[in-house]
């Protein structure tokens, strides 16, 4: 059931069904995510942002997937490296920076959570926590609800390869398979869980192999190839909407930074590997592809980079100016009030 990337690459011409402006849009989101992420590290080094955890190296895996999903309709449960995903889904750079600075108007948590714990009900980005893997059962429950209601939204959930060691991963995939629920599981395999290499994490070469245990198709794809990820996700989306059930996608990515700003990966990662990672940059790769196919001129690229830099500047400034949460708000939202939007019974005789 494991489908290799070669098979995917053998599909229709470059860009699949995507017109050139969409392809450029993809690149734009990748550049935006990267620029925001890099800025966060700068702010961290400058003592302005206490914590950063990166998307760098994962952008293609997320943008590729995002372009195959239906924004505002499908539910997204992206783990803490999901910056590029939430940008495509509609979170603004300013909103992202409000989270970094823990401002009152941070849409994810109002400054309550660490940065990169995304959530926004309006955008169907489901609130994320820190304990890894807990979001996977939530995605399954969203799919179950959809099946009960007869809807056709999909739940897309992401997590690292280390997280597949958690029991919740197993329980969730198993349940999804039993009911053929519309869920897409994207494992972003960057070979490390903080300092623990995949070899210490599992005895299989590919997370996609884990699908077989549940009767779920497992597909391993080069996650630095945005179009390959787009294509496998598009097929998974089709499958899910048809009612044929879930897909497990392993996107092989690179972690281009330390685990987080609290980590120092030179204590466990060989220097040559750290050097190598730079050569697997998904953005460099996509730029080259677009250039080669005449979809992106040098001038286009420069303009795009300039635009993105300006956006990041503006987002940073806006977010820095925003107010901190008031201390008294500590006590807000412990419980949802009765008679909230979910309260009234619907239908029936009561």
């Amino acid at each position, binding site marked *: 059931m494991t489908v290799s990337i070669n098979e995917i690459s053998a599909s229709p011409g470059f860009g699949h069904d995507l017109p050139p402006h969409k392809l450029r849009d993809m690149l734009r989101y990748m550049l935006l995510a990267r620029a925001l992420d890099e800025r966060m590290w700068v702010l961290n080094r400058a003592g302005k942002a206490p914590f950063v955890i990166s998307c760098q190296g994962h952008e293609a895996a997320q943008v590729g997937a995002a372009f195959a999903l239906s924004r505002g309709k499908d*539910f997204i449960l992206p783990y803490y490296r999901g910056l590029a995903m939430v940008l495509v889904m509609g979170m603004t750079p300013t909103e992202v920076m409000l989270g970094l600075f823990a401002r009152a108007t*941070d*849409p*994810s*948590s*109002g400054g*309550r*959570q660490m940065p990169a*714990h995304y*959530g*926004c*009900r309006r955008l169907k980005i*489901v*609130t994320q*926590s820190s*304990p890894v893997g*807990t979001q*996977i*059962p*939530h*995605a*399954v*429950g*969203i*799919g*179950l*609800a*959809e*099946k*009960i*209601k007869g809807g056709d*939204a999909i*739940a897309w959930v992401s997590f690292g390869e280390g997280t597949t060691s958690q*029991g*919740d991963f197993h*329980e*969730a995939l*198993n*349940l999804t398979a*039993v009911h053929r629920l519309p869920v897409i599981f994207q494992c972003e395999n960057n070979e490390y869980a903080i300092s623990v290499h995949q070899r210490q994490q599992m005895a299989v070469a590919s997370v996609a192999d884990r699908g077989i245990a549940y009767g779920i198709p497992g597909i391993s794809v080069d996650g630095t190839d945005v179009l390959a990820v787009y294509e496998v996700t598009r097929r998974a989306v089709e499958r899910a909407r048809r009612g044929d059930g879930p897909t497990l996608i392993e996107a092989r990515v690179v972690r281009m930074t330390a685990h987080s700003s609290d980590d120092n990966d030179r204590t466990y990662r060989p220097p040559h590997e750290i050097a190598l990672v730079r050569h697997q940059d998904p953005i460099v790769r996509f730029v080259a592809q677009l250039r080669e196919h005449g979809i992106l001129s040098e001038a286009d690229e420069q303009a795009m980079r300039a635009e993105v830099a300006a956006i990041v500047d503006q987002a940073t400034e806006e977010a820095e100016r925003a107010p901190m949460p008031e201390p008294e708000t500590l006590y*807000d*939202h*412990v*419980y*949802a*009030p*009765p008679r*909230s939007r*979910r*309260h009234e*019974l*619907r*239908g*029936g*005789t*009561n």
Partner: protein
Amino acid sequence: MPEMNLLEAIRQGLDEMMAADSRVFIFGEDVGKRGGVFRVTEGLYDKYGPMRVIDSPLAESVIVGACIGAAMNDMLPIAEIQFADFIAPAFNQIVQEAARIHYRSNGDWEVPLVIRVPYGGGIHGALYHSQSVEAFFAHVPGLKVVTPSTPYDAKGLLKSAIEDPNPVLFLEHKKTYRLIKGFVPEEDYRVPIGPADIKRPGEDLSVFSYGLMLHYCLEAAQTLAAEGVSVEVIDLRTLRPLDTETILASVRRTGKVLIVHEDNLFGGFGGEVAALIAEHAFEYLDGPVMRIGGPDVPAMPFAHSLEAAFMPSPASIAAAMRRLAAY
């Protein structure tokens, strides 16, 4: 008003809510054809079908986790944990997820989820089918914890729990399922989550309890009445949020306190009740704040001799009441 046992009252509550709102569904082990190992959901599978009364895989974490997801996708799920003793695998999903989602999203997301949990002993269930788990969860902000002890309260609280936009742990004492009978109105009603209930008014001492022990306390109070001691018995009913006002008001009147639960004493829920009283009604106290709880051993053993030694009894409760009255 028909008389029924506590189990039937819960079943009726489930049935009426499922009829009233198509978003309500039940998810748990053996809840379908089998109607649950205690028969609480009996008949509902036939009535509402396999997509609303769903047999889950044997995996408590995803039972709760999937219900959280469904709740965030506009459903009103009811998770059943087969025995309270088996809720531990779902601890992460309940405590770190269900309880914190509303808060962590700054009020953006809600988890209207009911987790039904048969608990408690005295039913020869041994170490792993007799446990009380309320202390673990009543400590967690963001959760509500409900412990009905009569059929009327059980049905009324269940409906409130299903309508509540927050995660509610609904604890059903297994021994009360068929033992405790009572009248339940035909018409629709609610018992609100929060308020305690004075099950027996009295003047000389205040006794706080819930679940099976509430009934033992009532029995003991009856005994004491014959001895000329007037015992007020208050059913806490909801442990979180706790009805501190009713508790303190009673203590201010009687000046003497006994707290009774089946769960082991040390670190149990009674400590919180005692602490609130010792801080906020200190000036009214005419005697030590007494507690009775299960012994501090890991769980309730199987052998009759040991199970009997574990369970607080109406007699041991009456004895404590007497000591307190005499203080």
